[in-house]
């Protein structure tokens, strides 16, 4: 992250006839937005650690409650890890945009003519790294906890990596829609979860196919395609919704 040599290069053109001064505005760049959002995450570890701890607690408690029957644990492992991943993702999204609205960052971005879709994209990418990205790595714990084979665990990890961006984007849309409501955070899972269910079904289905020796790759490819499309489209949708936050 190097400092870009951006200096004030605002040009002032004075029109002699009408005597009107016109300034050409310069907006914030990608690296500066990225650095800021990264610092916010990095220096607020407590906020993003909670959902990860929740994920760990669920996948640790599950085998303890089910008992130590290997065949049963192996059957339940993939679904249990996926449900835990989904819950931890849903739990983490209430802080996506609300603080930015409350502390005035969003207003400053809009007034300063910054690219709101770009900011949304950067914020969501960084949020993904610190939530589902880490969850995907932690999901390898299913090997000791649920006696999954390493092959199944890698497929499980791949299914989380390909499916979770779409889950996050759906939650983010729900979160931006409920932004101007007082208790909007409660509504986010209610709006997002029904749309997220297909992802859960496809992802666990893909791992099951691989486990029974069939080819689950098309399903993973489908999830990845959905994720790519939502990453490309949703930031624009969210940006439009965010601009309406003051109209209540």
């Amino acid at each position, binding site marked *: 992250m190097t*400092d*870009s*040599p*951006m*200096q*004030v*290069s*605002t040009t*002032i053109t004075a*029109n002699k006839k*009408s*005597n*009107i*001064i*016109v*300034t050409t*505005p*310069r*907006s*914030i*760049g990608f690296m*500066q937005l990225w650095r*800021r959002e990264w*610092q*916010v995450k990095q*220096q*607020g570890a407590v906020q993003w650690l909670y959902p990860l701890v929740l994920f760990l607690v669920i996948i640790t408690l599950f085998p303890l409650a089910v008992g130590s029957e290997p065949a049963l644990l192996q059957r339940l492992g993939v679904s249990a890890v996926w449900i835990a991943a989904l819950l931890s993702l849903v739990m983490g999204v209430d802080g996506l945009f609300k*603080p930015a609205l*409350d*502390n*005035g*960052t969003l*207003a*400053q*971005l*809009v*007034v*300063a*003519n*910054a690219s709101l879709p770009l900011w949304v994209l950067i914020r969501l990418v960084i949020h993904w790294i610190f939530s589902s990205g880490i969850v995907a790595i932690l999901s390898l714990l299913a090997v000791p906890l649920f006696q999954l084979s390493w092959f199944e665990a890698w497929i499980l990890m791949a299914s989380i990596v390909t499916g979770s961006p779409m889950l996050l984007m759906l939650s983010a849309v729900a979160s931006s829609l409920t932004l101007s409501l007082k208790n909007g955070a409660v509504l986010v899972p209610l709006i997002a979860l029904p749309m997220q269910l297909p992802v859960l079904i496809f992802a666990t289905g893909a791992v099951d196919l691989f486990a029974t020796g069939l080819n689950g790759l098309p399903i993973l490819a489908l999830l990845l395609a959905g994720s790519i499309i939502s990453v490309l489209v949703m930031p624009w949708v969210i940006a439009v919704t965010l601009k309406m936050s*003051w*109209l*209540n």
Partner: protein
Amino acid sequence: MTVLDTPVLTLDEMMVQRGEIPLCEGVTLHLSAGSICHLIGANGTGKTTLLMQLAGLLPVLTGEISYQGLSGLPIQPLYVSHQLGIHPNLTVAQNLTFLLNLYGITPSATDIDDALTWVGLQGFETISSSHLSAGQTRRITLARLYLLTPAVTPLWLLDEPFTALDVDMVARMEARLCDFAQAGGSILMTSHQAVGVANQMLDLSDYMV
């Protein structure tokens, strides 16, 4: 003061409204380079709403607005409101850098140092903003005023900039507003205190619905 009489912002028969509710009708204002306009009116007359509309946060549905000779809202004005744009996770210097980056400025360490000294926060660069008092947090946002020139933001929209500031700081702020206006900037500000440096006044009570 040759820059005076250069039109910067013109409001013509504008309606101040929050959503569906109209607050003021037919607001007319001419702001030139060098103007410091004090926006007054009782609570609820729509001072904050007017500034939010000009900042582009709320839509303007009725009336004509022109900025720098073109029809439309001001582009990239400075907007200071009750919500400061300060993130508690970031340090004082990081917050100030971001707020300046928004206007295409990459401040040097000396710039940050000077601006923070001006607001009385020297030595606080690496302190987390969550450890500061309400007045000190406001000062981070106001430190921007020290570095922004009319070449970057010709128009400042300030909503109660003097809230939570001590007498000494208010005096320094007024001097800075004066300097900015002399350099060719325009200011539209609300304040419940008297603003000694204002050379124009707009009373929204006259336009109430």
